[in-house]
């Protein structure tokens, strides 16, 4: 079981990452691009947390009678990263809202067309 599972988590995470990446580069809608970025971010979080897991370990909150804990360091990095990712996502969405107000569309192709007309 362990041999087969060896890298399973990492591979799925990479597939998820590429899903988000594909949305960002292939889809013209700006809101969808931000959502693609969100998926990409979440997959990075899962990658870090997968690395922190130790076989047979438990959550890193110290208690009598337990000796194996998962690695707390990636947890700390990701905990703050989640909140920061929300803040940056909000900033991106705010930009989308302003673009929508300026151009009347949130479609990248249409925005390019309007820019060329000017």
């Amino acid at each position, binding site marked *: 079981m362990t041999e087969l599972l060896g890298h399973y*988590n990492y591979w*799925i995470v990479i597939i998820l*990452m*590429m899903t988000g990446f594909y949305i960002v580069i*292939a889809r013209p809608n700006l809101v969808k691009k931000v959502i693609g970025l969100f*998926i990409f971010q979440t997959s990075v979080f899962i990658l870090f947390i997968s690395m922190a897991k130790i076989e047979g370990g438990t959550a890193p909150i110290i208690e009598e009678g337990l000796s194996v804990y998962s690695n707390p360091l990636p947890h700390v990095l990701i*905990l703050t990263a989640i*909140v920061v990712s929300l803040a940056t996502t909000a900033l991106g969405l705010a930009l989308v809202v302003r673009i929508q107000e300026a151009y009347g569309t949130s479609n990248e192709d249409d925005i390019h067309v309007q820019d060329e007309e000017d």
Partner: protein
Amino acid sequence: MEHLIDIVLLGLLMITGFAIVRMKSLLAVAMLTSIYSLLSASLFVVLDAVDVALTEAAIGAGISTILMLATVALTRDEEKAPRHTPLLPLAVVTVTGAALIYGTLDMPHYGDPAAPVHQHAASAYLHDTPGEIGVPNVVTSVLASYRGYDTLGEVTVIFTAGAGVLALLGYRTRRRNIQGPGIRKLVVLRVIAKLFFPLILLFALYVLFHGDYGPGGGFQAGVIFATGFILYALAFGLGNAQRVIHHPLLRIMAAVGVLIYAAVGIEGILLGGKFLEYGVLADDPVTGQHLGIMLIELGVGITVAAVMLIIYYGFVSRQD
């Protein structure tokens, strides 16, 4: 057995990801993103990251979904088909993915206790925390004490993002409550909101001050606190919510939180220690650590709650 749950959850996440790519309606995509967050949060619980799961639950399923919906409400719902064929992006994605998968082959196996990442700093944190910091939750001790600089930086980033959203979207105070057509008879919702609003705020305080002993801390508490006010705004209208907690007050609070954090650091210098050294704050170093951690968690909580509400007000007050 945990492996099986892990595999199934990852599989569901993958299916959801593909569905998000294919779905055209952006509102549906936003709903799927919320489900995606819920699933990844359960995955974090399986992987023993309870603090991270708490954060992802509070943020991914709650505020970020609300923001995406608010943005979709301000733009068009339907996504147009791309003008170019997606062959080039597909090729780029496939090549990048293959390269990354090739890279994972050298990585230590999943769950391997001998992996390099577990050897140096992490084992020292786990070993030293009970003696040096005296709090059971190692994540809190690393977050607030060992890597306090980092966290100060993150809080500043959040503050800056809040300022950025404020600069982009501004804010409008609503004198009159425009009664949205939405759920027209809000009686049930209002009763429940009145019942839950104080409980949510109380629970946020519990998460804030219980963060030393269980999952929780300033980041999560701030988000839960903001969610309480969002519930209030949903039930009683944005105008009333803005009368309860003024926008200028929010802007001040966002700065106050960061300043509390920095002040604790400078207090350490004044008392003869280094920046963000909590040991000197009290006679006993462990008590000093407790005090320092509690104060900076409070600062983090205030900033996060204020920024989340600034962002929410910014997006929702545009919908006129």
